[in-house]
């Protein structure tokens, strides 16, 4: 155990720092701390250019080879990369589905034509959304009902998706459909690649509790999708649901934990500005969240070390990492709530002179973290069953 990495890895860190200094646009720096909520587009031009720049310089997904936007970085270097970006609060992309889920899924499960679509997905030239959740299939995703029936050389798709992030700006959708209703629910699901402008698709944005819309409902009415757009085997789509960047699994926690740590620092500043640094209750509350954020950061690193040697959590991650999403999303929500409270009566102000006090918006938005990608309750089930080995409920 030691605090620093090898000289070679530290040189990698320095090269990244130079690149960011030279190329990163001002809009991308400290992005989540000062989000441009009034932006006319959820996918502004600077963000598309920035993603392409990262790809072209081999800094988009460092663990990939250059033709996929990387530089064959080692796992340690990938961790360093994620931490350096997170420390500066610089996003790689404003639409995660393409590079993080679709690209890797195409590469792992696609035929030659489909694999050829991966570079554009990772570079962001093609904007993707993922059709998973449905009104009756949220945490129980395998219960999805959107039906795709073969008719000649086409699938005919009917049904409805919901909470589909970026659907209103996407070119393509990686869509989970039921191709066989007569078998156990996990065994009748397939994945189709669907052009969002296909006739019969109706995208209706859903406004968030924070105000703007970032995701949408997507309705499918007799949408014809060529059979060649099937990704992977027929009825074998469930295994594609675990698709994500395998070589970044050891660092999925980095962004969330970095936001927690940066937010604790902000809370210290706010408490000082409000003259509350001698208030015993606030001092202990802030010390307690500092303790949690620091120990989670350490746990993420401990899990990273365990990846190479220890047992897996069943999804390619270390047991330690099963805790991370639950812990940092719950912590972050609490931190934003604490920020509102520190502002006193101004915590509820949304306009005028108090408009720069964005705690309420971040608090509202933080529910995305405790709900999306497996709710905190589902995360606890996963920890109990996969890590602690407790039996499944009836």
């Amino acid at each position, binding site marked *: *155990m*030691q*605090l*620093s*990495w090898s000289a070679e890895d530290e040189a990698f860190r320095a090269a990244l720092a130079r690149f960011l200094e030279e190329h990163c646009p001002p809009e991308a720096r400290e992005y989540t701390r000062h989000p441009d909520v009034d932006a006319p587009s959820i996918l502004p031009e600077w963000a598309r250019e920035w993603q392409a720049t990262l790809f072209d310089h081999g800094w988009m997904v460092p663990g990939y080879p250059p033709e996929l936007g990387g530089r064959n970085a080692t796992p340690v270097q990938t961790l360093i990369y994620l931490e350096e970006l997170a420390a500066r609060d610089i996003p790689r992309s404003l639409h995660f589905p393409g590079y993080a889920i679709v690209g890797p899924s195409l590469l792992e499960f696609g035929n030659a034509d489909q694999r050829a679509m991966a570079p554009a997905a990772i570079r962001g030239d093609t904007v993707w959304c993922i059709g998973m959740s449905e009104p009756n299939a949220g945490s129980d995703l395998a219960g999805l009902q959107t039906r795709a029936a073969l008719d000649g050389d086409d699938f005919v798709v009917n049904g409805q998706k919901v909470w589909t992030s970026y659907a209103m700006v996407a070119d393509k959708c990686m869509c989970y459909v039921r191709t066989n209703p007569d078998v156990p629910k996990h065994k009748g699901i397939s994945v189709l690649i669907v052009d969002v402008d296909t006739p019969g698709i109706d995208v209706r944005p859903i406004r968030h509790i924070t105000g703007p819309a970032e995701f949408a409902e997507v309705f499918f009415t007799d949408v014809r999708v060529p059979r060649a757009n099937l990704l992977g085997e027929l009825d074998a789509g469930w295994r594609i649901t675990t698709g994500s960047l395998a070589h970044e699994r050891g660092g999925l926690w980095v962004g969330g934990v970095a936001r927690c740590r940066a937010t604790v620092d902000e809370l*210290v500043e706010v*408490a*000082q500005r409000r003259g509350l*640094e*001698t208030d*015993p209750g606030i*001092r*202990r509350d*802030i*010390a*307690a969240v*500092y*303790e*949690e954020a*620091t*120990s*989670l950061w*350490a*746990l993420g*690193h*401990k899990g*990273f*070390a*365990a990846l*190479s*040697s220890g047992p897996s959590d069943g999804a390619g991650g270390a047991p*330690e990492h099963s*805790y991370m999403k*639950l*812990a940092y999303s719950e912590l972050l929500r609490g931190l934003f709530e604490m920020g509102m409270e520190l502002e006193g009566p101004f915590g509820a102000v949304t306009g005028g002179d108090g408009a720069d006090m964005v705690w309420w918006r971040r608090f509202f938005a933080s529910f995305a973290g405790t709900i999306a990608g497996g709710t905190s*309750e589902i*995360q*606890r*089930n996963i*920890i*109990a*069953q996969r*890590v*602690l*080995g*407790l*039996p*499944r*409920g*009836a």
Partner: protein
Amino acid sequence: MNFALSDEQQLLRETARGLLAKECPISLVRDHAEDPSSAQGLWKHLSEWVELGDGSLVDLCLFLEQAGEVLAPGPFFATTALYRPLMAALGRTPAETGTIAAAGASGQWPFTGAVDGNRTRTFVIEADAVDETAILVPGPGVIVTTSLPARRMETLDTTRRVFEIDVPMGEHSAEPLSPEALRDVLDRGAVALSAELVGTARRILDMTVAYAKERVQFDRPIGSFQAVQHKLADMALDVERATAAVYYAAMTVDADDPDRHRAVHVAKAAAGRAATHAAKDGIQLHGGIGYTWEHDLHLFMRRAYASEYLMGTSAWHHERLADLLFGTAG
């Protein structure tokens, strides 16, 4: 930061695990509560490892975490975690066993360098059973004595004996110690105690998970109920993150890193909270059997709470941490 254990560290951990599982069964821990001499056989084995007190804190923590899992009694903790580091700071050759007397009448450990001027020293671990006692006095300074009358303090924890002693005024001269050197010794001790605490917490977690798998009610193991699963998931999270915090702190102390004081407060608070959380929910999830004297669980709860209160409670460490975060120290 690299949490990977070296081959030597893995071997050390496995050796400690095997040794303590064999030589420190729970029956020995129970016998020791009635007759402290029952732990003498264990000490013969542990005495071969006292030099861990002089080296890497990470290594010592790997050993003490295992000691905490089995509630190992005796002078090993005080000797390795407190006494030997202090002797090293003073440039003295250590005796075979030793302890330090740091807390004054208030019970508070002098992490800030302000040693109590009162004559009483409290919570002195194993004071009647060690070769030397090193007493902290204002200055700060240290008086090293070989034998002192020690009055047993009855605490929750039947597995760790603590005592009250009087500072022998005027009879001995104190050796000076810088506040920074004192702080380093106490930092090491707090991290070492935290390592024991996460061992104890993990053992409670393991016992409770095992019980939840085996105990059947309503025709199914109680561990299949979400109310039970979610409690255990939260308990496990606290144990895991506290463990990581302890080894992070140990690494910062070993490296003399500028973050070490914050990291030490984080480690003790995280470990204390994890252990008391595990103890509370552990007893609760065991139901009626956990409420009995016969079941071993209460021995672990006793250790968890007594250690949470020793060398600064979680709330106290949070308060010191707030001083560092807000720049309000001193």
